């Protein structure tokens, strides 16, 4: 079977178009932004042994982000575990543990390689180079970030005709003016510490070594889902204070990496294969047609 110039050009054209499309339709790199940055990610160390459940952070957070400020004197809220919500980017929960009451503040964990950022098809969810994970208004409201977040943090305004995703942004919009996130700045017990992740892990390890009886030897967030911006210390195992300990250490974007890497391959090889089969079956038909076997 010879190949004339015309069909050669056709195949070449199809191949080039495929290659170009493969480039447009496939990810250049799956790793969100964690790869090589000169800046270190900032984070917050939450020492739950120091937290007294005063909920000042809740009020400060609401105030700073124009949300409705909760009545922090009301301790009845502790009767059940509260998730964060569209009106509350951070909440403090009380847990009854083997070592008595423990309070734990919850908010976005600001993962090093966030699932929500890898999920977002319009880059409305972004990992900033300073460390915070932020949301922007070019969002389509598909809620894929919500299904992809291992900590179930992004919250959607179902009651609104112009809904937003609400979540902690580590005060990214205020960090230019202020030194630290408002929850850290307002914590009266110094249970929260702001710094680079490296510094925070060092400090957390120092506390564990110095007072081994007061802490379980684990920093939650050091390795979980590839590392998170918020890091936690606790005197009881973390599952007792509402943390999932079955999340593994693989960054969430890694789960879709294999599939996304196969995309350019399929887009290039599949059409080539199909064109080949199409050509082969064509030859057979001509022979039959020549014998007058058809029509």
């Amino acid at each position, binding site marked *: 079977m010879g190949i004339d110039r015309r069909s050669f050009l056709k195949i070449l054209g*199809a191949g080039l178009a495929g290659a170009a499309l493969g480039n*447009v*339709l496939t*990810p*250049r790199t799956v790793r*969100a932004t964690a790869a090589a940055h000169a800046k270190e990610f900032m984070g917050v160390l939450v020492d739950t042994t120091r937290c007294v459940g005063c909920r000042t952070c809740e009020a400060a957070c609401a105030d700073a982000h124009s949300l409705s400020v909760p009545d922090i004197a009301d301790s009845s809220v502790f009767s059940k575990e509260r998730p964060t*919500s569209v009106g509350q980017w951070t909440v403090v929960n009380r847990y009854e543990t083997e070592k008595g009451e423990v309070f734990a503040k919850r908010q976005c964990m600001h993962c090093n390689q966030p*699932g929500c950022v*890898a*999920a*977002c*098809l*319009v*880059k*409305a969810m972004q990992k900033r180079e300073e460390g915070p994970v932020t949301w922007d*208004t*070019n*969002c*389509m*409201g*598909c*809620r*894929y970030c*919500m*299904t*992809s977040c*291992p900590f*179930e943090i992004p919250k*959607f*305004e*179902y*009651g*609104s*005709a112009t*809904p937003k995703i609400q979540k902690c942004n580590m005060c990214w919009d205020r960090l230019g003016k202020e030194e630290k996130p408002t929850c850290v700045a307002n914590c009266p017990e110094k249970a929260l510490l702001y710094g680079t992740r490296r510094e925070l892990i060092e400090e957390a390890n120092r506390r564990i070594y110095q007072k081994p009886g007061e802490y379980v030897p684990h920093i939650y967030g050091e390795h979980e889902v590839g590392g998170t911006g918020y890091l936690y210390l606790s005197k009881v195992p973390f599952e007792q204070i509402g943390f*999932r300990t079955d*999340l593994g250490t693989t960054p*969430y*974007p890694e*789960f*879709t990496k*294999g*599939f*996304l890497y196969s*995309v350019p391959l*399929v*887009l290039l090889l*599949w*059409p080539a294969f*199909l*064109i080949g*089969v*199409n050509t082969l*079956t*064509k030859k*057979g*038909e*001509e022979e039959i*047609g020549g014998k007058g076997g058809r*029509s």
Partner: protein
Amino acid sequence: MNETATTPEIKSVKDFWIFLCGELKPKGKIFTTFNVISFPIIVLGAALILFRLVKGLGAVTNLSQEFPWGIWIGFDVMVGVAFAGGAYILTFVVYILRSEKYHPIARATVLNGFLAYVFYAGAIFLDLGRWWNITNPIFGNKFGVNSVLFLVSWHFMLYMISLFIEFSPAVAEWLGFKRIRKILASLTVGAVIFGIALSTLHQSGLGALFLMAKSKIHPLWYTEFIPVLFFLSSIFAGLSMVIFEGTISHKVFANQIDHDGHESFDRILIGLGKGCAGALFVYFFMKILILIHGKQWPLLTTPMGTWYLIELIGFVLLPCFLFLHGVRYENVTAIRMAAILSMLGILINRLNYSVIAYKWYVPLSQRYIPSWMEIVITLAILFTEVWAFRWIVNRMPVLRESPAWATEEKTVKKSVTIRKGVPQWKVSAM
């Protein structure tokens, strides 16, 4: 009785409008059972859609922070797209493998696929909280190229275009555009090849959406091979839909199909049943391999394990055997039953990923159960699609023969068209 297609003479824009206005009028009886049931639902659905756009998603859906995806994603998109898979399988068989046997149903299948994408994938629009940003993945400068959904959205759009190109010769025949028909027909094979590549990726891509829900999907369903399973299941889902839809079409539009068409249809169904049995078996085999490799069998004794076995045995293995039985004994009824079973299986499977096995640990009282309004809107979309399908089939040569000028052209230029690989509608019937 075979309706003969009349070709209009359209020479100016005015002619076109007159023709179109004439065609817009209903052709059949107005007060049929189907119309009496579907019309009020469509009207109610349209009102609810308006309500949803004004008041937000919370006003009509039972979605929550815990369950962000409901039946508009889990059923309309996930199941609808799987059922629309028949178009890429059948175009593969007809245009790539050039099996003439299936040519008579190719156009109806492509039309069905196209409408399914327009309507069910269109349901995404309703589900998007910030729907006015729907064009952001396509126009703009912030492309989330790391997102599986970015790929899926692009592929949906491109595949709809491919399907429209594949169907467009029928539109040209309806309008009597002879030259344009020739150009459009010459694009078919290209569109088919492109469409198959796109389908492979977005059928599996819909599964890949759940890969990052690792901590939320029951371990019996969660596997890194979800994309492969979604792709494989789209094969028998699509073919089963072709059997189901074809069976109904052949009854409803019986007057459009000639005697030969009715005769060959049973043979087509048996052939499709064979394909389904094969695809179901491969899928079953994959499921078993994944189960063994995942070492999750202790979970089979839990309630979710029972549910898993019901899906696997009742809706994968059973239809597989039923298809085999139908093929072996040329029993078309068995094949139709098997098609319905395997379609139910797809429904269960896709809803498992999005709703049922998703956060299986959440107690029933806090789980997502669709509201009546979500169901009415879904039904309204489904009925509108059937209306659109009926409108087109009654006007364009989908089930009936192409107009004489289109087939004559093919007879004269047959040797040429074969060399060029131009599709030949209804060659088998010539």
